[in-house]
């Protein structure tokens, strides 16, 4: 194993249901994530992205295969790995304020006193643009704001690897672009290796150093496409660069080949 590899999926397989109802979802997933990279996993809705992410996070066991985090097999959620769930509105606790929700993730972290945790939570909330909303409850916030609280909580556990499950699927286009840049900026600033799951090809390419394209179900890795655009991205300039267009083209082509297979 390469020592810069932080996360590794080895032949992950998982099926739901039993007997006649058995439905294979993951059908041999293999890939690696290097420390410091931003990796997108792109695949159509229902192809098993969340299922994959749960296995990567140690929240569900694959039927066969293995997840390795920093070289260690993952059987339980490991320390140093944080998840931002797709269903963010239900992932926040309604009885806690935004600040308290963020503090909830500071269990194994350097901040020990109440004041330290508070300050850290406020810093993170400020980083996601919610400085004034620390005392608000999740149900007092808009969907986009709730998602940002969930991201702040993801950062609060001081992990190295952040798994993001379609964090922007439910927000409008403008907010979406802003949030993409925010996530990129946070990944840099808080030194996070990120694995972002999405069904949006443009988003996958715009955000990532590497795009992992999933096949249709039963799902395996169709191809990996490197995106050599450097760490600094810009909503206008980046999307016009040849490298971006080329990577996007390759991803699209790969996905289209599955579509025509399906039609045929």
């Amino acid at each position, binding site marked *: 194993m390469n020592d810069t590899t932080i996360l590794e999926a080895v032949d992950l397989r998982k099926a739901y249901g039993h007997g006649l109802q058995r439905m294979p979802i993951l059908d041999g997933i293999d890939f690696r994530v290097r420390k410091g990279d931003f990796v997108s996993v792109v695949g159509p809705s229902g192809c098993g992205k969340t299922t994959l992410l749960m296995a990567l996070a140690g929240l569900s066991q694959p039927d066969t295969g293995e997840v390795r985090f920093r070289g260690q097999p993952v059987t339980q959620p490991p320390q140093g790995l944080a998840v931002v769930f797709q269903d963010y509105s*239900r992932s926040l606790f309604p009885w806690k304020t935004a600040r308290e929700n963020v503090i909830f*993730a500071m269990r194994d972290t350097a901040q020990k006193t109440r004041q330290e945790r508070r300050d850290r939570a406020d810093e993170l909330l400020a980083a996601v643009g919610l400085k004034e909303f620390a005392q608000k409850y999740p149900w*007092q916030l808009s969907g986009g704001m709730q998602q940002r609280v969930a991201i702040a909580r993801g950062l609060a556990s001081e992990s190295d690897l952040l798994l993001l499950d379609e964090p922007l699927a439910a927000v409008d286009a403008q907010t979406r672009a802003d949030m993409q840049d925010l996530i990129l900026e946070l990944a840099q600033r808080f030194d996070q290796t990120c694995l972002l799951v999405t069904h949006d090809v443009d988003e996958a390419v715009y955000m990532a150093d590497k795009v992992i394209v999933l096949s249709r179900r039963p799902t395996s890795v169709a191809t990996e496409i490197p995106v050599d655009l450097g760490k600094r991205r810009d909503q206008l300039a980046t999307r016009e660069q040849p490298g971006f267009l080329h990577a996007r083209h390759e991803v699209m082509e790969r996905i289209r080949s599955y579509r025509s297979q399906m039609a045929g």
Partner: protein
Amino acid sequence: MIPLRKPADYAPILMPLIVVAIWALAAASTSSPLFPGPAKVAQAIWHNFSTIMVQLGATLTRVVIGFAVAAAITVPLGIMLGRLRIIGQLFEPVMDMLATLPPPAIVPLVMLFAGTGDAAKITMIAFAAAIPLLMNTYEASKTQNEMANLVARSLRLSRFETMLRVDLPAALPMIATGVRMAVAAALLVSVTSEILLATDGIGVFLQRQQENFQIAGGLAGIFFISLTGLVVNTLILAFEKRWLFWHYRAQEDAK
């Protein structure tokens, strides 16, 4: 400074005043000793105040003990049954059956085992309170929020911590509903049990008054029972406002 009030603010005071006025008129027009007016009842309250307090104290002591026993047993039990699906499903029909059983129906059985003293009454109160507490805790624990549990697991909380910091707060609104029903049931059964197994308590006071045709005294007792119910309800509401506002507000916002 006294803030200006809208007429609507007077409504809750006005209605009882009207009722009392009609009552006074009706009592005055019949002038039967079996139909005392408000003045007579006020007098009875004055005369019997210390007796009523002592008896009510005896009643409430048993209510508190019975309720505490019920809560100590049923809340953990309900959470456990909700967690262990299969055992919970086994017990569900039993709980449904017990839920429809009027608590006084168990009096003979309780007397057989516990006699007619405090222990018997406390047992009945505990039984009456246990049913709504158990049902509601069980339901709350069964309908756990899967998402919240995933969050807890990914943050590496232990099972116990998850129960305490995630499952319990999530279940509290439903448990509170159970508490409200349980308190009402406990009060009802305590008075009933006293009337059936008389030694002391406000129920005994009521019965004595009735036996001696002291209708005004009886009404005085009833007045204090209602007052107790009102105070307890207000306390519960205050608790819910303080600790469970997030539940009601979140529900409102979802509409």
